[in-house]
């Protein structure tokens, strides 16, 4: 009977192991969304437009940095890498619009809160990288990197 707890623990692990990849990516993605939400709330709570721009700019820089790191990993396959490039282009577009570059009119001071909300909604409404289009392993790697930098 002393072996029973050990056997139970083994059975528990065996049964839960197949779930860990998908459950893990969901947990990490939810953590990422929560981190992004904190940044948006921080922007809204900052009264000074210069401070708001600084928070948004830092966040976007870190996103670019993380996506570049993820894209450079050998374990990321071709289709996943292209999706990362696309995500990086989206982030670059946010940066350009925030700063008024690449043909964008700069986001007005009064619209910075709304712009932060727009970025959040755009990233939330589709799962990271389009969800099913990134492999589960790639999602976990990418999100772990993004979590570290946010």
């Amino acid at each position, binding site marked *: 009977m002393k072996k029973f707890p050990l056997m*139970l623990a083994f059975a528990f692990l065996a049964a839960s192991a197949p779930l860990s990849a*998908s459950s893990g990516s*969901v947990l990490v993605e939810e953590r990422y*969304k*929560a981190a992004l939400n904190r940044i948006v709330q921080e922007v809204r709570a900052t009264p000074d437009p210069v401070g708001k721009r600084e928070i948004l700019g830092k966040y976007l820089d870190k996103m670019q940095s993380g996506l570049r790191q993820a894209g450079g990993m050998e374990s990321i396959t071709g289709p996943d890498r292209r999706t990362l*490039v*696309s995500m990086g282009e989206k982030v670059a577009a946010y940066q350009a619009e925030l700063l008024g570059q690449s043909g964008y009119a700069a986001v007005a001071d009064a619209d910075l809160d*709304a712009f932060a909300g727009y970025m959040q909604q755009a990233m939330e*409404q589709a799962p990271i990288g389009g969800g099913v*289009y990134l492999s589960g392993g790639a999602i976990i790697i990418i999100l772990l990197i993004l979590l570290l930098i946010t």
Partner: protein
Amino acid sequence: MRILTGYPIRRAFASAPAAILALCLVACAPSVPPGAGSGGGGASFPHAAGAAADRPARFQFIYVIHGEGSYGFSGAAGVRKSADSEALARAGEVALRSPDAEVFVFHQKPIRLFGAFRIADGTMRQYRNGSLVRKENYRRTGGAFGLEAEAARFRKHAFRIRPEPPAGRVFLYFGHGVPEAGLPSFARGIGLFAAAGADAGGRDTKPFSLVVLSSCNGGIPAAVRALAPHAIRILASPGELHLSYLDAGALSRLSRDGDPRAAAAFPGARAALAESWGRALAEESFAGLRRRTSTAVTVALYDTDKAAAYLDVRRSAWDPAAAPADSLASAASQGIPRHAFRDCSENPGFGPGGSESGAAVFFRPARFGPEKGRASHSGWECPVREPGPPSG
């Protein structure tokens, strides 16, 4: 815990295996909701909540809410919400406020023991005429996008004796977008519900008045074409859809306010109901999404007969199986990732879409971003494909 009442619980939990077994049995067993009562139910409906629940309903709403995945989003003031939980709550509200409807709500979310052991894949709730009459967990079959298990429960528990087919039958799906590879399985699953519905009536050439696809990229030609045989109207978002979803809350009001004789009164009445309900839901969804979001909002109501005819003569403009090699594939050279989407009107030969294609389009461009000045949308989005054989 109802089934353990009166049982020596301490003894039942004397050993861990027994405890696990007992919890599994509790979790998997059909349950009767508190307050549902037991009077008035016949042999077919032992848990019905009195006479009201035994009366045939004029309407039938079937909700499938996908909940396995990342569904968190931020509501007003940064409050974190779960899209599937919100959709489940709203479906329950509609069901309880619809005194003339039978409502099935399938929540496709695993139920786990100790957070790890998957003991069920989803929960079914059945409401009749405003009362919750049944709740049970179930195992899914038919793959990630199959609906076989849900359709089987519908066939088992839905009212079989009706004086006439329900005046309006609506299927609603809430979840992340169904990928093209999953569409055949998904459409086949909806067809199983449709067949069950047709059996009950016999007069329904298209058993669903309305199919609501509350997901990203529901309004793609492949999806609308696949579901066209099953529904008179389809309400969907061709583009990305915020996780606060389309708003189907009006169903309870619509099912209360309609003329009781309308569905059977004259030829074309079901189509008229589908159009008026679809338009009401489209308008309310569009208004709500405009208010809540600053991303682009595209909601479209498809007349499936008209849309199918439009799509069939332009198949090569959207279906890779019918397209000349590489004609749909300019994506890679533009750096567009696999499975990105764009307005189908940008595909050569697709045409303008819109009303000509049977799509009533409600569009508001994003407040920011490269397309903030965009004036219109065709109502259709098409996957942008890589050169080479389609990846499915």
